[in-house]
């Protein structure tokens, strides 16, 4: 398959692994953060950690848009959609995320009309096909998915389709990275930059990480060879004492980003003054809300949102895992009270969540001779 097989070639991957081992200075311990949850999953799914020397450590970042949502927002969305004529529509990923009184799938089993959609346009279609009901689309995602939500709202307004609204939980990536770098617990050497967010925002927004913080950033694709190549590029910069932004994912990411997508977002969204992130606390200007010009299609402006703040269960350490301070297996609840079937937090069920990735792909792996003797 084009664009997949070449980037999974065993020979090239093995070569990249060797290059990493050559570049890694044995007297250093490298801490590299992959920001995006999709990268975390790819790393575990392809077993890439097996190829890294012991002194190149990958730290999982907070780039999981479902994981960073506080439970209160899930509760709010489900409360809004509890009306008899409502349809709660969301991506599949949302369906098992636990709210205080259950996940959307559990609400569905109790009688709420909950539907999985594959894009916001599908949610709009649902509204067109069900004129007697109100479709509420629970929108999540970083800048990757925000443009399609924006375009859907533009279309809804153009069609005057009033039985449709969006409960907007889009967040932006740069403030999250800033919060990580500002945190005293974190010492990082560089970043594997988010691949799909960058197709929208481009590579410029990461300049300050290199210039002001002195950390190299390599925007990476999601195939095994992409990720390994990005680590090679980071190690090269670190060896040369450089700190710049590079684009490994050139076949998909334009340096300047996608102007049309950014324009659509600007038309529909503005930044909230602040927003609460699980694990990172309140961050100013870090989330999107729908403008007044689209008030009719904003669930929050049209209906009353309970707005209750719900703290995570005391024993859960979701916040620390999100920040990369703890590895998933170090959380006290991991694999015991918290599993993919009975999740305590979203990190264990989201396809971008690091706990889910670790649990599903890694945590019962035998220690191989190779990994034990590495470096």
């Amino acid at each position, binding site marked *: 398959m084009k664009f997949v097989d070449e980037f999974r070639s065993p020979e090239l*991957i093995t070569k990249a692994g060797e290059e990493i081992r050559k570049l890694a200075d044995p007297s250093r311990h490298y801490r590299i953060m992959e920001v995006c949850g999709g990268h975390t999953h790819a790393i575990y799914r*392809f077993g890439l950690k097996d*190829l890294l020397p012991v002194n190149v450590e990958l730290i999982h970042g907070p780039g999981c848009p479902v994981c960073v949502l506080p439970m209160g927002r899930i509760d709010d969305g489900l409360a809004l959609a509890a009306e008899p004529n409502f349809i709660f529509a969301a991506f599949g990923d949302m369906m*098992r995320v636990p709210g205080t009184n259950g996940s959307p799938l*559990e609400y569905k089993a109790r009688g709420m009309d909950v539907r999985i959609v594959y894009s916001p346009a599908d949610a709009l279609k649902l509204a067109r096909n069900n004129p007697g009901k109100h479709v509420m689309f629970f929108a999540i995602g970083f800048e990757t998915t925000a443009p399609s939500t924006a375009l859907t709202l533009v279309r809804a307004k153009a069609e005057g389709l009033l039985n449709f609204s969006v409960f907007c939980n889009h967040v932006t990536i740069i403030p999250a990275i800033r919060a990580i770098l500002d945190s005293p617990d974190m010492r990082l050497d560089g970043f594997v930059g988010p691949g799909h967010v960058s197709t929208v925002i481009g590579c410029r927004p990461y300049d300050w990480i290199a210039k002001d913080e002195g950390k190299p950033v390599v925007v990476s694709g999601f195939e*095994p060879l992409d990720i390994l190549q990005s680590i090679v590029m980071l190690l090269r910069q670190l060896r040369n004492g450089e700190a710049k932004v590079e684009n490994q994912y050139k076949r998909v990411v334009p340096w300047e980003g996608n102007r049309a997508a950014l324009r659509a977002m600007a038309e529909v969204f503005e930044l909230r003054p602040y927003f609460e992130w699980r694990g990172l606390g309140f961050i100013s200007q870090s989330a999107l809300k729908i403008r007044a010009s689209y008030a009719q299609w904003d669930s929050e402006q049209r209906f009353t949102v309970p707005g209750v703040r719900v703290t995570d269960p005391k024993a859960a350490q979701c916040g620390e895992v999100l920040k990369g301070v703890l590895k998933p297996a170090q959380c006290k609840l991991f694999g015991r009270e918290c599993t993919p*079937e009975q999740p305590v937090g979203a990190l264990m069920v989201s396809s971008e969540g690091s706990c889910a990735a670790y649990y599903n792909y890694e945590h019962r792996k035998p220690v191989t001779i190779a990994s034990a003797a590495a470096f």
Partner: protein
Amino acid sequence: MATIPAAKIRFREPQIEMAHGAGGKASRRLVEGLFAPLLFGASPGPLGDAAQIQINGTRIAMTTDSFVVKPLRFPGGSIGELAINGTVNDLAVSGARAEAIVVTFVLEAGLPTEILEAEVRAMGQAAGKAGVRIAGGDTKVVEHGKADKMYISTTGIGRLLSGVEISPQSVQLGDKVLLSGPIGDHGITILLARGDLDLEADDLRSDTRSVFPLVDSLVQAAGAGVRWMRDPTRGGVATSLNELARDCGHGIVLFEEKIPIRDSVRGACELLGLDPLHIANEGQFLAIVSAELAETALQSLRATPGGEEAHLIGEVREQPESSVLVTTLYGGSRIVDMLVGDPLPRIC
């Protein structure tokens, strides 16, 4: 007949969810935690695809299955064919030739007769092809809205083949994993046939068929080495092998590059973030075969019509205990667990 002392119920969930029918972990919890203690007593032994019953010294296998699928018709088949082949296959992988099937229909009032007729025809044809007699059945009709057009349930009995003794306990270190053909065809076909996704794969069809001819060849050529068989339906290859790993305590290591899968299935899975190992199959089966007879087993399948794409895809090892591991050519590996709930496509 003596009453079976009921064992303790371990199923603690307050209500039944969709996940309990998906064939993965939740299903297993329901069966092991509620049905088994109440119906099979304190120590029922491992639960297989069919029950073995002794009547006057003859060993008979018996199995039942129900079919709930949407849409009723899809490229490569329909619910009627699934209903016959599914039960024939459950008997086949238990080492039995299906002899007779009885059918139950639960029909929704308002169902057009021509739809029912089409399915009954399909069942008759599938039964004829599989060489099994449809011996009788029952019909119930429920109110409009209480059944998704039709639910079909089939119960089959079969005669156990000689020369094969299968049980998870007989699986040994060094045994090989044999797969009859490409995975994921059925599940992806159904997903695309639902029309929710803007994806098309013109060449993709459900793989529904009777696997008995292949099982028969296998048993005749290498019966002494066949330790265990299963048809990987809901929950896919991963779920079947995880069940085995749990039952026998060993590890099962699969070699990713050896697993046969069509490009269109692979592509759809990549796009949706699904693992092909979790996708349902309706015309394939897995067998664990001794190392000495593995090659003979493989060749017997490849020489049988319909078995040309059989592959040896892995082996039984000590580690990781009770788990399934998939390895890649470049030295990476990942654990593959049983399916949790329904496979849900990812966001970004």
